[in-house]
């Protein structure tokens, strides 16, 4: 019976107000403490209906400092960066930037949900561009699928055929000429916010 019943209680010792403060210092995140919890962000978000916490609740978690919940949820990865919340927010909270900031934290601390394809895609994208200077959609999708769930390749085969047939799938992976310089510029990435 106990397996069905879960204790839900937030203890103040789990809250990390300094972390909340730190998130609010990231570019674009300065207004998280102005949120009035009206829910406009969730209402306008095309993906909130799939999220484990609505965007409004993410803001609430952030400013109360409940770091683990905010970083290990699916919500931040479902955010497609459409900026609807950001332009609709009556308090000018740049929710998209908060989501980005949480994604970075989640990757840094390896708190994202395992085998969830979206962070895998982000990391593969990051690697491909780092190596070549440009992205290749074909290789990106292939690598992401291999690392999350290879079975999806089957469902993608049909789309791939459509693209191939219309000359829209490029198997060649482009590379910029001054890639060495770019890699040099990209060396030693730092986080701007801290």
């Amino acid at each position: 019976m106990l397996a069905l019943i879960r204790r839900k209680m937030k203890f103040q010792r789990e809250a990390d107000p300094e972390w909340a403060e730190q998130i609010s210092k990231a570019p674009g995140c300065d207004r998280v403490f102005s949120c009035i919890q009206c829910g406009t962000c969730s209402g306008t978000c095309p993906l909130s209906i799939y999220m484990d916490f609505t965007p409004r609740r993410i803001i609430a978690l952030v400013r109360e400092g409940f770091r683990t919940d905010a970083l290990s949820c699916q919500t931040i990865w479902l955010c497609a960066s459409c900026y609807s919340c950001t332009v609709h927010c009556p308090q000018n909270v740049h929710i998209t930037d908060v989501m980005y900031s949480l994604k970075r934290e989640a990757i840094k601390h390896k708190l994202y949900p395992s085998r969830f394809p979206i962070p895998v895609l982000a990391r593969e994208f990051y690697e491909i561009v780092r190596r070549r200077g440009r992205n290749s959609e074909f290789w990106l999708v292939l690598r992401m699928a291999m690392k999350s769930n290879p079975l999806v390749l089957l469902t993608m085969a049909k789309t791939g055929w459509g693209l191939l047939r219309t000359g829209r799938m490029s198997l060649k992976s482009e590379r910029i000429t001054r890639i060495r310089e770019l890699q040099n510029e990209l060396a030693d990435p730092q986080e701007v916010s801290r």
Partner: protein
Amino acid sequence: MTPEQAAKTSKGYLYFPGCSLRATGVAYEESLVELFRLLNIPLVELPDWNCCGATSYMCIDEGSAFLLSARNLSLAHTVNSRDLLAPCAACYLVLKKTQDYAAKHPKIRTQVEESLARGGLPPFDGVKVRHPLEMLYNDVGRDTLKSNVIRRWRGGRIACYYGCQAVRPYDEVDTAYNPMRMDELLQDVGAPTVDYALKTKCCGGSLTGTVHEVGVRLNYILLKEAARKGAEAIVTICPLCQFNLDAYQAEIRKATNEPIDMPILYFTQVLGYALGGDPKKLGLHRGISGRDLIKRWFPAHEEVEAYV
């Protein structure tokens, strides 16, 4: 013409294709190039451009994200260009946001400039990031476009779909709430447009590849509402929007039993055809869905006729 020459002739534009226009969005580049040729405006590719970083880089490391984007701005700066055209909505936004955040946060600017200097590149200000929709609307103008139209519209009603990142959060391409510039340009070439409440809703971006069912459902909704409003085709200004709406219609038909088979076009294709462009050069053969309709609306052998 070299990029420097193009930048110096007041009419020429430097442009940043972005990765998508070299793969799934190849028809966008083809139609853009063809449209500019028809308008007699030189269009030159930014030399050695790199990926803008899209949304993924910002998820991992903001410093690198800003740097990737800034490198392109810096390259544009080296050829003394006033404008940099970014047809892909994601590229447009990322480039614009980099400039905006560098202006607002001196720390970002300093760090990016230091990194650029390591690769021997100059600072990145002074270049204005433009989207072709806004550029055609403001620089070329409705009157010029209208006066160049030589083919009459033979298609049906269309829904103009602006998507997200071109109109949000920056409002230079058009307003965030009810953008109308694409509607106006397409009406100018004779295409009737429908009221489309979802014109700025998100297509899900890369979600069709990651959380497939969710991404496809978003596109199903967009297609269905366009059809409900009487549109027979959707016209877009972003390669990812075009891809998402175009590529999964067969799957949607199978899952819903609804007879959705709708051409998904680029606004540059519609404008280019009206100006007498060759359908093949405009990439009109590259559509996956609604191919019959595309053939009917944009016949290749149609004699170019004066627009009445």
